[in-house]
C-alpha cells in the first residue's frame, strides 16, 4: 500500500437521521433516551437529541476500513469525545470524516481522523493504527 505522511487517504460524509440513532441503539444495546427523545434530552440541559458517541466513533473508522480493505487490519483505535452531534428531527446531522496519514513505518500506518459536524470538530485525538502486513 502506497501512502505518504500527510496524505489524505479517505474522505466521506455521513448523514445521520433519527432512524440512524434508533438503529444504533438496537444494534449496540445503548438505549439511553437522550438519543431518541427530545423531552428527555432537554430535561437534562442538552440542545436536542444527540448521536451516540460510539456511533460517531464507529462510522468514522469505516472510510479507513474501506481504504485498507479489511476491518481486521485495524490494530488500535482511539478517540476523545469533545463535542456532541445534535441530530435534528427533520434535517438530521451531516458528519464529515477526513482520514490522513499521521505516522508511517514499514509495518503500520497511523491514520489521524478529523471528524466534523456543523464546521466543528467532534472527536479529539481520533487515531487508528493499521497493519500493513
Amino acid at each position, binding site marked *: 500500500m502506497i501512502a505518504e505522511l500527510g496524505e489524505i487517504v479517505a474522505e466521506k460524509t455521513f448523514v445521520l437521521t433519527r432512524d440512524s440513532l434508533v438503529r444504533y441503539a*438496537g444494534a449496540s444495546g445503548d438505549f439511553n433516551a437522550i438519543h431518541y427523545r427530545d423531552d428527555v434530552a432537554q430535561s437534562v440541559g442538552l440542545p436536542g437529541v444527540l448521536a451516540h458517541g460510539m456511533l460517531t466513533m464507529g462510522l468514522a473508522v469505516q472510510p479507513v476500513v474501506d481504504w485498507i480493505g*479489511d476491518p481486521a487490519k485495524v490494530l488500535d483505535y*482511539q478517540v476523545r469525545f469533545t463535542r456532541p452531534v445534535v441530530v435534528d428531527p427533520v434535517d438530521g446531522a451531516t458528519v464529515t470524516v477526513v482520514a490522513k496519514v499521521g505516522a508511517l513505518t514499514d509495518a503500520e500506518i497511523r491514520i489521524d481522523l478529523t471528524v466534523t459536524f456543523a464546521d466543528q470538530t467532534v472527536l479529539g485525538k481520533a487515531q487508528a493504527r493499521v497493519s500493513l502486513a
Partner: protein
Amino acid sequence: MPVNPELQGRVFAPTAPYLVGREKIREFARAVFATSPLNHDPEAARAAGYSDIVAPPTFPVVVQEATLQQLLAEPDGGIDFSRVVHGEQRFSYTRAIVAGDELTATLAVSSIKTLGGNAMVTAESTIVDQTGAHVVTATSTLVVRGDE
C-alpha cells in the same frame, strides 16, 4: 456520594460468555455504515482467511457494555449514571472478532482522577475468547460530573 477513590485497582468478576452471532454482526455493521463484504458475506470473509464474517472495529462495545454495567452497579462505587459522560474510548486488538466467537470480558478500574470537581474513571475491559486467548481490550474513560 462522590466516586469512591478505592475503586482504583479493583478487578471485577468475568462476565457471562457472549456468543457472537452472524446476524448480530450484520446488524451492528449496518448501524455503523460498515459496507465491507467481510462484515456481511461469509464467503468473502473465508476467501480473506477468516472462519466467518468479521465484526467492525467498534463491535467490542457490545461485549464491553456488560462490564460497564457491573461498574455502575457497584454498591460502594458512588457513580451516578445520570452524571456520566463518555470521555474517551480505545480498542486495542490482538485479532478481530468473528462470528462464532464466545467472548468473556473482565473489567479492571485502572485509574480515578479528580479534575475541577469532576471525576475521571478509566476502566479497562479485557476480552478473551473461549480458549482464553486475548482478542481485544476496550478502555473507557467516563467523566462523572460533580455537583454544580
